[in-house]
């Protein structure tokens, strides 16, 4: 059993995560997931790699709270949130959100809400390496 909320350098398997999510209830009829990946192009520039820095202890607290909030708000049976840190290349996985519910609408709405909230609440920073050098990403308001 891996934890339902994690920050880690290594990649993850969606099959493994979904298997663990399903394990929590046979009532689960719908699972929505969001997978964020590294694009090789951003704001008009080529991106060769992306590095993530995190305030690990606070980020984990916030991600756990976000998971609990989503379970309560959408009546989920279970949810998982994983964010990678360190350096990734084009096409690599960055963040994975999964929400399992009895019915599909709650699962998909919760999934969308969690990734939107994660971007607002979780202390993680992203640096892109382009031909012009490195730069920290400034999120749009």
């Amino acid at each position: 059993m891996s934890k339902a909320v994690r920050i880690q350098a290594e990649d993850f398997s969606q099959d493994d995560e979904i298997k663990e999510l399903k394990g929590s209830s046979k009532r689960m009829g719908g699972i929505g997931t969001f997978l964020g990946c590294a694009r090789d192009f951003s704001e008009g520039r080529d991106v060769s790699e992306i590095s993530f820095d995190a305030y690990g202890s606070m980020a984990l607290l916030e991600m756990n709270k976000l998971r609990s909030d989503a379970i309560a708000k959408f009546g989920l049976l279970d949810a998982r949130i994983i964010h990678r840190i360190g350096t990734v290349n084009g096409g690599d996985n960055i963040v994975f959100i999964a929400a399992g519910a009895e019915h599909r609408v709650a699962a998909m709405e919760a999934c969308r809400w969690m990734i939107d909230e994660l971007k607002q609440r979780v202390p993680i920073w992203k640096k892109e390496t382009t031909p012009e050098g490195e730069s920290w990403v400034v999120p749009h308001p």
Partner: protein
Amino acid sequence: MIKVLFFGPIADRMQMRETQLEFTRGMTMQDAIAHFSVQHPSAFSIVAFIAVNQTQIHDKQMVLHDNDEIAFMAKYAGG
């Protein structure tokens, strides 16, 4: 002592990830901000969030306690 943390773009501008601030009775978050922002105006110009013991705070008049862990953070860019 108060543990002070910097991450991402602010760590780069501070040229450090962690430092300490001597604790004095009655000191507030505003005192801590004043201490660092004078020496590091570029880093502090992008501070968007402040946390005390892993919890975001909004009141800069908040009184600090010995052994608190504080963090000055730029806008988040996860996901």
